[in-house]
């Protein structure tokens, strides 16, 4: 079996390696790039603990070959925080207790991140549908939904801050 050279950009950094074509993207991320925040949960493409954003779309990295991601860009949970500062979706999950054991969390965060990029104000139904490929055995999903709603508010507020101009108050 001929190995293949792949170059994958993860969280803005290029990772190059010669890999077996059968290597799953999730293993490239965890073992070649050393980013273990993305998890393997189920073996059957059900649980979504392996979710990353590939070229702008949330996908299950356990069901993608590393070679399929050659020359493409990926964001993982480690790429959400900027200069150490938590992304609003990460803050919201902490704030609203959207996690217990933490195993499904990176997958939940990445799908939520993707959802909020295309839908600024999702309804509860839209949130639950978007997360239907991410399973959680601990929380019962209530606080996860609350966290995503909170994150949506936070992101909107941050974006609106740029539009607000302070007017002088007339006496």
């Amino acid at each position, binding site marked *: 079996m001929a190995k293949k050279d792949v170059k994958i950009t993860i969280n803005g950094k290029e990772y190059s390696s010669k890999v077996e074509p059968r290597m799953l993207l999730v293993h490239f991320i965890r073992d070649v790039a050393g980013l*273990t925040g993305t998890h393997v949960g189920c073996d059957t493409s059900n649980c979504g603990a392996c979710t990353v954003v590939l070229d702008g779309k949330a996908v299950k990295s356990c069901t993608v070959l590393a070679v399929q991601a050659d020359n493409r860009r990926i964001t993982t949970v480690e790429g959400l925080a900027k200069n150490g500062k938590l992304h609003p979706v*990460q803050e919201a999950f902490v704030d609203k207790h959207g996690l217990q054991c933490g195993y499904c*969390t990176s997958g939940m965060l990445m799908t939520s991140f993707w959802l909020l990029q295309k839908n600024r104000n999702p309804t509860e139904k839209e949130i639950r549908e978007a997360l239907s490929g991410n399973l959680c055995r601990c929380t019962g999903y209530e606080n996860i939904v609350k966290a995503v709603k909170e994150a949506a508010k936070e992101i909107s507020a941050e974006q609106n801050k740029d539009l607000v101009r302070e007017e002088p108050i007339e006496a």
Partner: protein
Amino acid sequence: MKSEEKFVRGMGQFVDDIKFPNMLYMSVVRSDYARARLLRVKGGINAKTFNHPLAAVGEGAMSGFERAQHMVFASEFVNYLGEPIAAVYSDDPYKSEDLISSVEVDYDPLKPVIDPEKALTSEPIHSGFKNNIISEKWLGKDFKNDSPIVLEDSFRNRNG
């Protein structure tokens, strides 16, 4: 850092996240049958070379239940689908999984008893046991048979 913050950053250290230098990866050869006689096992590390019980598992870990010990690898019989029969190792997890097919196992499949009430009276599946009862409990004290109302029923825990 609060543990919740650690997890949202992807910095939880779950078992598979832990890495050591010169690590080996293990794959387990597991029984294809719920009940079978193991005629032959060749390859990997198996009961012939590693004949030890698991240190602590379920009822067998409690004192008084030593006879319900679970051996790491099955030897004469397998008693559940997926029971470990052998283990193989490699420095690469993909090759480790490939090595599973290098272990040869010959089974003589038998009919499993899957009804608990039948199991009460059928042949013990573990050698050295009188029957298939691991533990028997009476709940409550002062249990009298002369109560005005006696209720009797069996309850099925729908786990699958």
